[in-house]
């Protein structure tokens, strides 16, 4: 509670408000500081007061053989995961808790994990700030959060307008959305952007990819899509009758620049493919199985997803027969899963493309899911255009 109150002061909150759920990011091992904090809470007998889901940890508890790192690290990472379940959190181990629980429009929640935050705020219209490690569990244990930032209606209004001006075939292309998000994160700054020109038919997976990218290249925690997301039925409603001071157009040129900047490697060398950052939905797993269509991959191919999503997915054997490794509970860019000697990895995730080169010391090729599959089957990077 002391941490919450001090953070509330920093955030300019005059009071705390009740929250209805929490999502915890602190269970991923980044060193002993995180473990020390969890041990301190557990030793004090802390228990969560609201339904609380857990983000990915450093280990795939269902497929421990995938871990290639230091056993000492694995032991500490495992102890951290265990401590958080002892505090009463649900062992969901997913960065996409919105596949499991759906906070309602206007509901106050305290979620951590940047992609989950932006999804809950933007796509679901629930209200959370950018909570991070430590404060997430403090909020879960107390059931309270500082009444500030995106918990307050006035801070959720759009202050910047982005017009997406792309030909229909680009609007329909899935890789447009992570590329748009990558651009948006760099452009938005502290504004709340509303995007216009995205059709109502845009999929939830597209919005997930957009948000995850924007929360990686920038600190975007909330965006609106006119006529699509719940707080943006009209331009007047989403701006509160105000005017967007900043405006920009995202056109073909911006799209091409973003797509190019997401790759660090050129050439056709391919050592592995990794998708599912954020964790793949059941629909994405089904698309993957459909695109593979019985063919075998010629390179290691990883898909990260939640254990609960896997349970609901009927086509697991089709993926395994094609040679795909299904990773649960963790993610390929936060823990040693890729083999030594892997230098060039292809992904359809802007978030993975953004962080993996720094985390893993590898080169990355960004492409659509179709391109990832075709490349893995061919054993070299294959582009459609």
């Amino acid at each position, binding site marked *: 509670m*002391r*941490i919450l109150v*001090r*953070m509330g002061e*920093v*955030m300019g909150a005059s009071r705390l408000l009740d929250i209805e759920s929490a999502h915890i*990011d*602190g269970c*991923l091992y*980044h*060193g*002993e*500081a*995180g473990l*020390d*904090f969890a041990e*301190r809470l557990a030793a004090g007998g802390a228990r969560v007061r609201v339904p609380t889901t857990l983000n990915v940890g450093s280990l795939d508890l269902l497929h421990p053989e995938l871990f290639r790192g230091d056993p000492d690290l694995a032991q500490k990472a495992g102890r951290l995961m265990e401590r958080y379940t002892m505090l009463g959190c649900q062992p969901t181990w997913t960065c996409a808790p919105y596949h499991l629980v759906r906070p309602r429009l206007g509901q106050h929640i305290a979620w*951590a*994990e*940047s992609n989950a*935050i932006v999804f809950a705020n933007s796509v679901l219209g629930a209200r959370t*700030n*950018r*909570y*991070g*490690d*430590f*404060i*997430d569990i403090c909020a879960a244990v107390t059931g309270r959060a500082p009444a500030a930032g995106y918990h307050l209606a006035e801070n959720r209004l759009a202050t910047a307008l982005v017009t997406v001006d792309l030909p229909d075939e680009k609007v329909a292309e899935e890789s447009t959305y992570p590329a748009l998000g990558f651009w948006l994160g760099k452009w938005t*700054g*502290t504004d709340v952007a509303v995007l216009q020109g995205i059709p109502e038919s845009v999929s939830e997976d597209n919005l997930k990819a957009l948000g995850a990218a924007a*929360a*990686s*290249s*920038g*600190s975007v925690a909330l965006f609106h899509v006119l006529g699509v997301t719940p707080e943006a039925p009209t331009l007047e409603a989403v701006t509160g009758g105000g005017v967007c001071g900043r405006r920009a157009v995202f056109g073909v040129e911006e799209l091409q620049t973003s797509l190019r900047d997401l790759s*660090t490697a050129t050439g056709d060398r391919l050592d592995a493919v990794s998708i599912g950052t954020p964790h793949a939905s059941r629909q994405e797993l089904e698309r993957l199985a459909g695109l593979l269509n019985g063919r075998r991959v010629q390179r290691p191919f990883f898909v990260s997803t939640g254990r609960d999503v896997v349970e609901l997915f009927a086509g697991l054997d089709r993926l395994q027969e094609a040679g795909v490794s299904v990773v649960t509970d963790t993610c390929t860019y936060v823990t040693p899963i890729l083999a030594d000697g892997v230098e060039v990895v292809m992904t359809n995730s802007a978030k993975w493309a*953004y*962080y993996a*080169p*720094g*985390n893993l010391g590898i080169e990355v090729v960004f492409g659509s899911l179709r391109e990832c599959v075709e490349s893995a089957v061919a054993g070299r990077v294959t582009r459609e255009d």
Partner: protein
Amino acid sequence: MRIKGTRLLAGDASGLLLALEAPLSFWGGLDPESGAVIDQRHPQAGAVVTDRILLMPGGRGSSSSSTVLAEAIRRGSGPAGIILTEADDIIVLGALVAEELYRRTTPVVLVKLEELRSFPRTGRVTIASDGTIKVG
């Protein structure tokens, strides 16, 4: 010169200035073992933050940055103090928890961007517990 900042986490610190030219996410961007900037897309990749007064134009990205900062402070590879131009809860929280757990204070001060116009980009900087920043 002196600037009166808003203290987000009070404390005294002194060190050589490291002025970041772009926002940095500590998670994926800072190695808590060496204190080096490892975000290959960052213009100052390779720079070491240890014992520096870190001037940051806002934070960015992952909510795991709090732990990375706390871990860097625990290991002694963290910055001596942090000056922000945009309030960033995730950074303040990392410094706050490190203080709670290890009794090591890394002050965080917020200043307005326009006040930094005439601020030098190098040199020794002192942060006082009332949020005053002194250069030279």
